[in-house]
């Protein structure tokens, strides 16, 4: 199905329609008072891909992923995740759905009164309560090793740097084995070296855990490293869609401002 608001940059886009769709958004609208944030926004996320959503600050990127995960209720439109229309879900159904969706917050959102281990144990104990303590410990060690911070097990979030907090936050997301990960500006506030490390980590996670991801960012380097496909947002709408090569070569004024 063609997206209504999205203009493909080139005709030779990968034939993504043949892939399994994990998230499908159609004509999504969201306003706050008189301010229209999302206007007939449509998007598809395919299984196993990293979709980067680019856009200026205030273009509605974060609102979009908060609508997907149910933190915000859209005014109208349809959001389908794994063939379930999420706007129709009951509280119990949301619980099950959210176990399949990981969310990495812009500032990590680690629970600051808990150690790193407790931060990871917190969702694990509530979602996978059937696991024995040994199995939980093994799972926690596995994800911490994957984000390269096994030695931070007993540290408090305040003792970690911004980059480390993002990694731990990613580990907390991974610990419950999500199928989809939504990244809200994963490299914001980090130095270029740490940003690249986080971006590479996003790719590694995708390969290792076979996740599908939506990465909200305005960091072009992050987009270059992680994107299988890109969507540019402008004024609450999907302005352009394409792959990295197509965006790099685009003559569109707005896209050129990003890809200088």
């Amino acid at each position, binding site marked *: 199905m063609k997206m209504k608001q999205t203009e493909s940059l080139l005709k030779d886009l990968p034939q993504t329609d043949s892939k399994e769709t994990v998230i499908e958004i159609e004509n999504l609208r969201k306003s*706050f*008072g*008189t301010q229209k944030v999302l206007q007939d926004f449509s998007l598809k996320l395919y299984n196993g891909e990293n979709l980067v959503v680019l856009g200026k600050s205030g273009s509605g990127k974060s609102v979009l992923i908060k609508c997907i*995960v*149910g*933190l*915000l*209720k859209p005014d109208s439109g349809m959001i389908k995740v794994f063939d379930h229309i999420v706007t129709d879900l009951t509280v119990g159904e*949301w*619980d*099950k759905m*959210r*176990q399949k*969706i990981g*969310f990495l*917050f*812009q*500032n990590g*959102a*680690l*629970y*600051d009164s808990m150690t790193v281990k407790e931060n990871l144990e*917190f*969702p694990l104990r*509530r*979602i996978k309560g059937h696991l024995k303590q040994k199995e939980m410990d093994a799972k926690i060690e596995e994800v911490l090793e994957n984000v390269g911070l096994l030695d931070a097990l007993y540290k408090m979030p305040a003792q970690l740097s911004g980059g480390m907090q993002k990694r731990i936050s990613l580990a*907390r*997301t991974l610990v*419950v084995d999500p199928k989809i990960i939504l990244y809200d500006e994963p490299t914001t506030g980090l130095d270029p070296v740490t940003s690249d490390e986080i971006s590479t980590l996003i790719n590694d996670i995708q390969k290792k855990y076979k996740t599908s991801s939506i990465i909200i960012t305005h960091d072009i380097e992050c987009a270059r490293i992680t994107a299988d496909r890109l969507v540019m947002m402008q004024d609450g709408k999907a302005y352009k869609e394409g792959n990295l090569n197509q965006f790099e070569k685009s003559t569109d004024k707005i896209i050129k401002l990003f890809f200088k």
Partner: protein
Amino acid sequence: MKINIPISKAKEIAKYNTLKLSEKAIAKTVIANNFLTDFADAVLFITRFVKETFSRKFEVREFFHQCFAIGYKSLSLVSVIGFIMGFVLTLQVRPTLVNFDAEALLPRMVAISLIREIGPVITALICAGKVASSMGAELGSMKVTEQIEAMEVSSTHPMRFLVVTRVLAATLMIPLLIMYADGLGLVGSWFGSNIKGDVSFVLFTSQAFKHLEFIDFLPAVVKSFFFGGVIGLVGCYKGYNAGRGTESVGKAANSAVVLASLLVLIVDMIAVQVTDMITL
């Protein structure tokens, strides 16, 4: 979602809708709208709290942790307050009683005042300052740093983990703190009466409890549970619904103290009326 409309925005809407409303009418509409929004928000919050309280999964560990934080960590403050209450009350009342040659009534009078009214209200007001502000600030900062949203998206029910445990812990621990403060108040009173007199502790307490009846204890205990519940609910509500930005954390803590203190006094006023109706 809570939308409080500022007056400037209301004016803009009124202009847009070509409603020729006067400044006064707009201001009144805005105040009414904000009040109703806040009220509806509070009702929704309490409804969610009740629903989560009776859900099958209860956060036992966090509940005991909160009992420790609210009860044990308030002990030193409540001890000092309780002692001073009894001590000062005795020093203030004693000269008047001496004038009427009724000094022997001192332990009884202090016990009734402390247990029925002064102990519960003053301890609850102190707890409103300590407990409600700490809940407001803690949950407010969790809201600002998206920790509550992080719990929400990982299906870990922040309402159940953060609010239910805190409110129930406050409901249980504040009455215990009040009883403890009453006890120390009597000790303070005994010290006070020994400044200008000589009475043994056993005699003082036996005189104090001799004329106390069940009806003196029951309303005080019942209302102290309400005080605890109100303090917990207000603290959590203000923190949970804090706005964005660090400024809102301070606002949440501040308004939690003010509202909790006000509600403690209102609950006390109602409790006194109800007790009067029952005892008449």
